[in-house]
């Protein structure tokens, strides 16, 4: 059980995130087939393979540099909506924790809030639009309430909130992205990007718990 992560550990955490997302490619792709164009898993897989290469190569001595490098790797390698969106999560989140020596529950809260703000600014979606925001935003809220807890507890709460948000997205009517023309028929399926957010936060939790 780790409570404050060093830059190096943040890098290790992202490697676990990468492996989990890459392993989940088929399920993420299927999720996008229901509402989108059936390629979300492929894009995320491409992006997180690039993250692994980037982190393997580079000398990254600060937390914000690690997140920033990961974000840039995703943006450049993925393209698509998710490249911009998930790249922004790590870039905007990383910028917000610039200067921090370690990554603890306060930094987690800062990171997630900045990520939500960055994604909303980039894509113009709001909570309730049936996008990954509906998993990311509740996670950020939980993290904001957990700054007094250990990083492990904060991540457990945030991951739980993200999973709940993913499930809640089933009951939302898409108004953004490819799914919006489905209107009512988008009901009953979770948003693909929300599935990715839940996987990412669960992986972060598991790394810290290990």
């Amino acid at each position, binding site marked *: 059980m780790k409570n404050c992560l060093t830059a190096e550990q943040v890098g290790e955490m992202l490697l676990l995130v990468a492996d989990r997302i890459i392993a989940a490619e088929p399920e993420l*792709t299927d999720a996008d*087939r229901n509402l*989108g*164009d*059936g*390629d979300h898993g*492929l*894009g995320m897989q*491409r992006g997180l393979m690039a993250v692994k290469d980037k982190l393997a190569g580079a000398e990254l001595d600060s937390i914000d540099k690690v997140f920033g490098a990961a974000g840039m790797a995703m*943006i*450049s*390698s*993925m*393209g*698509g*909506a*998710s*490249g*911009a*969106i998930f790249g922004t999560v790590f870039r905007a989140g990383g910028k917000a924790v610039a200067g921090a020596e370690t990554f603890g529950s306060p930094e987690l809260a800062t990171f997630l809030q900045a990520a939500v703000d960055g994604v909303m600014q*980039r*894509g113009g979606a709001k909570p309730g639009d049936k996008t990954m925001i509906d998993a990311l935003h509740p996670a950020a809220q939980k993290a904001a309430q957990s700054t007094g807890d250990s990083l492990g507890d904060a991540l457990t709460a945030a991951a739980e909130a993200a999973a709940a948000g993913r499930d809640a997205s089933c009951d939302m009517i898409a108004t*953004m*992205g*490819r*799914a*919006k*023309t*489905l209107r009512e*028929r988008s009901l009953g399926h979770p948003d693909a990007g929300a599935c990715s957010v839940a996987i990412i936060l669960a992986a972060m939790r598991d790394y810290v718990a290990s």
Partner: protein
Amino acid sequence: MSTMKKLVNDPLKVADELLDGLVEAYDGQCERVGTRSIVKRVIPDGKVALLVGGGSGHEPIYHGLVGRNLADGAACGDIFAAPSPDIVLEATEAVHKGEGVLYLYGNYAGDVMNFDMGAELAEEDGIDVRTVLIWDDVCSAPPTEKHNRRGIAGLVPIVKLAGAASQQAASLDELEATARKAVLQTRSVGVSMAPGSIPATGKPTFDIEEGKIGLGMGIHGEPGVEEIPMTTADELTPKMLELIFADFEEDDEVEALSAGDEVVFLVNSLGATTMMECLICLRKAKQILTEKGIVVHDTIVGPLVTCQEMAGISFSVTRLDDELKRLWQMPCESVCYSKMEG
């Protein structure tokens, strides 16, 4: 079904390999630039530049619309994925000749975000960038929200017109204005009978009940606005045209289509739908247009905007005013679409 039998090499490299092939198809007219862009070899200094782009897998668009009197370059993404901002930036720098660059592409969340990020980077380099989004798919949002619509096959006449305009445009403003007019006057409706497949997985992009047609289906296989029973060409064609007529009627920003209007009419196949079927639908569509007194100045038929081996068809109508008609009559040449003068 041919989906399991695609002639490719590494399924994860198709976007790069098809672009190499596309460059060859241009016989020296175009070259590959940066990560995944295609750009004309010769772009005159001081020309207002036109950049198109989007995800791969819809060939011959978008990158097949680079050419003589057409686009100067295209930023190409992976299969069904918008090009990354780096790619957009590389393409922008390659086509820029001092008078700015117009981005003209289909309205998809991924494309908008990535082209915008690319534009921000280009502007840091002091390049003047404007964006005109293509949103011709009338089935993807009501007229009041038309700026949320997707771009589909109507992009072909739109890029043809903008490409012609870019040869003569005195300024980026002028090109932008002409492109906006072409978008405003272009409306499309598509249907789909069967999905295409994603090269990397071989999986269909969507499922549709045997015997059903997806009305308003997007070119990425996004589900349509309604599923209707499979019917005949003569039954379906009026349904589709009616949606286009109604849209011109309901949209306050344009006049209703009326007798004497001159239009370009495009019958597009999404891939596996045969030219035979397109022509049979065209036959009926021309009867209906003629009854309304609408004058078809030029007709285009073929698989120009595809989604792999998807079965489906779309109609696009572009109304021409004197300026657009003059631009239309310019010859053009590319892998996607070519015409002689007139």
